[in-house]
């Protein structure tokens, strides 16, 4: 019932509507697009090095003859998967840690929040940069876990402070006075009432993770060759961006569109879920 209202409001919000349409199109492009291109992403065309976009190579080729269209879409797939997974893990973690810290307070709260502070102070970039290239065989899943481990802290603080105010809410107290165990109260009354925050946050974490992955890969600390991601492609492209703009323009453009569409959805969701907000 409520979800129906939210969905209706979401679609009535032009920002969110454009965001959703763009995101769906981009995902479709990433996953269905390769079937239409004439080259595989692993293929190398030795007849065409650094050729500009034309009828054959729609988005041009790289210095070793890879088809930019195929390889960019391949990179996009990676970026989308990483973004979504990181967001799910990070938001889930943030919800649990924040809700427990906020609800129980006392030493548990202090320990958890101290951990959060520490993680915030640690340069996540450094740790990811040192660790992830050394996970070569562990594949990119570990990279996802690491990225998520450095994404959840701010949300968990917000969740914590909202939990503290929810804890004083009368319906939560009512549950306590009914004799319902506290962990049950957290999952039944607290987390569901944070769901709008969590949904919005998960959305924005998607774009954060996409950018984070690209940033690390940009320096060669993220996705390792032969696998590609938007970040590695942009790094590659930016070196020759003035001479061969298509190497930079397509992956960078896709990245910006992806992030933009996700941000639009997030912002629209905020409007739809929170009738009081003005954004």
């Amino acid at each position, binding site marked *: 019932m*409520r979800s129906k209202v939210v969905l209706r409001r979401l679609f009535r919000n032009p920002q969110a509507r454009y965001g959703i349409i763009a995101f769906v199109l981009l995902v479709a492009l990433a996953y269905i697009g390769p079937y239409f291109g004439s080259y595989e992403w692993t293929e190398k065309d030795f007849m065409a090095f650094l050729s500009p976009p034309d009828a054959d190579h729609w988005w041009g080729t790289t210095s070793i003859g890879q088809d930019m269209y195929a390889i960019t879409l391949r990179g996009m797939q990676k970026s989308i998967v990483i973004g979504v997974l990181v967001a799910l893990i990070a938001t889930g973690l943030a919800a649990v840690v924040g809700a427990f810290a906020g609800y129980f307070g006392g030493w548990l709260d202090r320990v958890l929040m101290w951990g959060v502070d520490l993680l915030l102070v640690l340069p996540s970039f450094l740790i990811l940069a040192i660790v992830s290239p050394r996970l070569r065989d562990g594949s990119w899943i570990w990279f996802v876990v690491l990225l998520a481990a450095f994404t959840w802290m701010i949300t968990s603080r917000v969740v914590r402070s909202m939990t503290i105010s929810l804890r004083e809410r009368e*319906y939560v*107290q009512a549950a306590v*006075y*009914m*004799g319902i165990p506290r962990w049950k109260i957290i999952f039944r009354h607290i987390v569901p009432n944070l*769901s709008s925050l969590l949904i919005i946050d998960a959305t924005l974490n998607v774009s954060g993770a996409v950018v984070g992955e690209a940033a690390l890969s940009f320096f060669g600390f993220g996705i390792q060759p032969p696998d590609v991601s938007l970040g590695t492609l942009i790094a590659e492209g930016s070196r020759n961006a003035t001479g061969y703009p298509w190497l930079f323009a397509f992956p960078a453009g896709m990245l910006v569109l992806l992030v933009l569409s996700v941000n639009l959805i997030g912002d629209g969701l905020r409007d739809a879920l929170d009738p009081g907000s003005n954004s």
Partner: protein
Amino acid sequence: MSILEVTDLTVTFPGGVQAVRGVSYGVERGEVLGIVGESGSGKSVTSLAIMGLLPRGAQVSGSVKLHGRELLGMDEDEIVKVRGKSISMIFQDPLSAFTPVYTIGDQIAEAVRVHQKMAKDKAAKRAVELLDLVGIPNPNLRAKAFPHEFSGGMRQRAMIAMAIANDPDLLICDEPTTALDVTIQAQVLEVLKTAQQETGAGIVMITHDLGVIAGMADRVLVMYAGRPVEQGPVDDIYYRPRMPYTMGLLASIPRIDGEEGSLVPIEGNPPSPSALPPGCPFAPRCPMKVDMCDDEEPPLTPFGSGRHVACIRSHEIEHKGLTGADVFPVPVIPPSDVVRVPRAERATVLRLDDMIRHYPLMKGAVFKRRVGTVYAVDGISFDIAEGETLALVGESGCGKTTTLQQIMQLAPPQGGRVVVLGKDSAKLDKAARKALRRDLQIVFQDPMAALDPRMPVGDIIAEPLRAHGRKDVRARVSELLELVGLSPEHAERYPQQFSGGQRQRIGIARALALEPKLLVLDEPVSALDVSIQAGVINLLEELKNTLGLSYLFVAHDLAVVRHLADRVAVMYLGRIAEIGTVENVYDHPAHPYTQALLSAIPLPDPEMERTRKRILLEGDLPSPADPPSGCRFRTRCPKFARLSEAERQRCVDEEPSVARLGNAVDHGAACHYAEEIEVITASDDQEEK
């Protein structure tokens, strides 16, 4: 000529919400016009429209003339010269009405400087004078304080000071005392009267409290669904209402001088402004409705001298001399069996012995540290017998809610004892505590906050049942919904789809799910409109009698308490000041605080209000972190002021404890010089005893 002339004012918000539909009135110099109506009836929107302060999307039409000059459609350059100069406004919530980052003095000085060419230091001086005028102690010092450092009553005074800074011709007060305690309300109303004398301004007084209007207003306008439905001199409206809505409203309010008998509830809810019924907007709730009422909206027509009524049957009402109690069905509430047993022979369901609850006092949000102790509850004792209602009354901050929480937690108190149904809360293990929770349930103040917005009502009511392993959940939920006057189909809806009164019924159903013996009620009706309130009060009374419940009832509304409670305990700063049966305490209050409290409550009776003698208290509630030595009430005690030096010393040195008063069985007061007097109906004409 009148100062303000409003003609046919309408306000429509985007989305077709007709918040105000044709309001007309005039205000004369020195006159007080009272506007009453339920929440959402368009009172605030009307006054904002006059000031031109509505949000931008709102469409306003009609005419608002100040001294014959049209205000609607005036451009900003002109209207800023009127606002704050000729018309001033006082808002309901004085905390949010001041900018938090500037001092009170600066904000008042700003108001002065907007309209008068004046040097900064002179304006600052004027601000101090104004603060002095509205009775702020140490105005020099207090002008440098920030809004959050003021108490609610002081903020509202400062607000009044700001409003009269430029000698306005018209003051619009939008619920100026709703957020305040009764004793503070009495002070602020007094200040308002002074301000009016000082400026000779006309006042538009908006409120939902019929008592406040009775004492202040010369004429009254009753609003319903965005329109005036009755208008006239205050006595006519109160003693001879000629429109069923006004009649119902007056019959639904409990009174502190009240007679016994059940209240008259108005069934149903006010219509939503975006879905109005075709004819008379009150028709769906009106017991006098005839078919013709649905044909067209009855216009506000002149009726006798100087009054207007919008009801097609008003002449019939006049003719037959009908009152609210004649027109609206009066519910019959079955009497209770338990009360036939003398109190002393009944079991005790709750006993508090010298219970204490102190909190650490923290200061600052960024630089947090402990700076003292709040003595929230500092040794209170009382007991409740089976089938009895004990009311705990007192101003905000006196420790009522803390007391309730301490009882509900079933944890060992910091000091003293809490005994629920014969079991000491300090000696409970986990299982016993859970078992005891079946017998002890609570109904909260805010019916919206008390229900999880993400759960259907059926689940909300079923939650305690499931938690305690009941099997017949479904059947029981239906049964409970019917018990509180809702229908079983409602189980699938969400709390947002119910009105305030219905939500409170859901809260009551949940509390009754496990068939408790003792129900704790934390201000169960204070968030509801009067016409809805009566229904909930009647329900509570009925449930108590039929199910044999005992209530611990917390309220600040002494009229409701008088109606519902058997015994009453008056709290002041974490201690009990007076306790006893309702009749004893209300009719012969012995503690000076109780006396002041009772005399501060406005009666919905203009004649009595005009002659009533008030005991006004000085100043604010002292901080519970730093209570005065000896008797806590001595800083504000009117009796203390009249005592001799030697007698006073006792109040300063020795803390009085509740002592039984000589001639009564169940009546005690914590005052060294307790003396029973009558205050509710005390009037100026009466000779001082």
